[in-house]
């Protein structure tokens, strides 16, 4: 395995069809004191209410909430893009919302989140692409890689819909492709190791 000696500061996740189940699997593997914020775009029906936070909150040890406009991002919290809005991250690490038109037929769009996250977190960003039946996110993962961030993609064979993982894999050299059940434990290990290493280097 490659050795990583930098410290990550945020995780962004994009998911679509089959995503709620996949997100539950990933998030439930993480402890309540997970040291980074996790920011998620899950494609939803525009009129769907904000039940996703409740569903995910009930199944994980982390605080899960819908991201508010101008809210300052805090670690250990899972933030969800509100349905029918794009979610963006400002360089001061707070959220912005936009009702700009659909991007990749989606609002919220994974690409919009990922691209803005790159400007805010640069190489200290982990991007994860999970199941989905479209190509949203493939530009975002490219941007994350260009800036030196880290990309995890769900193994298309374990995805309910494989188009989104396949598109991400085709778009750039992703760091690791993992079966769904291994993503949470791997993420935890990746983050803990890099935290420890950065202490050693101080």
């Amino acid at each position: 395995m490659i050795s990583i000696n930098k410290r990550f500061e945020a995780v962004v996740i994009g998911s679509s069809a089959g995503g709620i189940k996949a997100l539950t699997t990933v998030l439930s593997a993480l402890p309540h004191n997970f040291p980074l914020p996790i920011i998620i775009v899950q494609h939803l029906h525009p009129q769907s209410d904000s039940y996703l936070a409740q569903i995910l909150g009930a199944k994980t040890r982390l605080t899960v909430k819908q991201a508010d406009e101008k809210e300052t991002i805090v670690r250990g919290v899972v933030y969800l893009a509100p349905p029918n809005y794009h979610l963006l991250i400002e360089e001061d690490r707070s959220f912005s919302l936009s009702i700009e038109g659909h991007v990749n037929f989606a609002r919220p769009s994974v690409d919009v989140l990922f691209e803005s996250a790159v400007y805010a977190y640069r190489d200290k960003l982990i991007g994860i692409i999970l199941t989905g039946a479209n190509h949203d996110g493939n530009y975002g993962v490219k941007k994350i890689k260009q800036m030196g961030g880290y990309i995890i993609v769900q193994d298309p064979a374990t995805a309910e819909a494989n188009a989104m993982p396949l598109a991400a894999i085709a778009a750039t050299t992703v760091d690791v492709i993992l079966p769904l059940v291994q993503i949470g434990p791997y993420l935890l290990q990746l983050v803990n190791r890099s935290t420890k290493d950065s202490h050693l280097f101080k």
Partner: protein
Amino acid sequence: MEDIETQNIELQLLLQAIYLKYGYDFRNYAKASIKRRIQHRMLKEGINSLSAMQHKVLYDIAFFERLLLDMSINVTEMFRDPSFYLALRKVVIPELKKFSFLKIWHAGCSSGEEVYSMAIILKEEGLYERTQIYATDMNEVVLKQARDGIFNISKLKQYTANYQKSGGLESFSDYYSAHYDHVVMNKALKENILFSDHNLATDGVFGEMNLIMCRNVLIYFNRDLQNRALGLFFESLGHEGYLCLGSKESIRFSEYSHAFEDVVREEKIYTKKSAHEEISAYD
């Protein structure tokens, strides 16, 4: 690799150039979205740096106009968020019926869908004839569309559904005439609407409103500019005036959080606090 620091300097200079040359002040907009829109235009026109864009903006007005359209994000709908319009009908309209004359301001009305939605509600509730609606936006192009009241037919199905969910009393198709690919809103809906140019970043107060709607505009502003706009609204509202923001906007963290109280919290409907507090705010 992109040099983000240098890009940010270029972005600041570009916004400064736009302000100095054209008077549109985007300097206090939330950066992530504005940057995204500018880069979008940059790619589309095959320009390879923000500095090159600055030159083009300064010397090519037609180019600036295209950029302005990108930057102003005019996406809108009729009866967007039906539950908001339902609350407006159920809670605010009955209160407004007490007045013999009403003034309503739509700030950031875009191409007018929101204003026609309001006009329809006022008609159905018997308030239209005694209401003056001011509909403003900084963008002349969308204001013209709003004045024309012509909308693409492809969205009508959704608007009809929105209208019904928002407590509409009639048949939505009574409010427009359908043509090949567009609909024309009834003339009677716009008789009492005054469309005009107004910029929340640089222009001043509008007098004595009973209701101000400013939905999905503040999300594009930084805190300072949000406070400026809310200050304008506070001063433009008359006694017991209502302020309606977008579903994901809130007054809670602004300088004006104490100047307003919740009317329908989930729908971001507020009212200006009572008279004596108001007076001390003016002193």
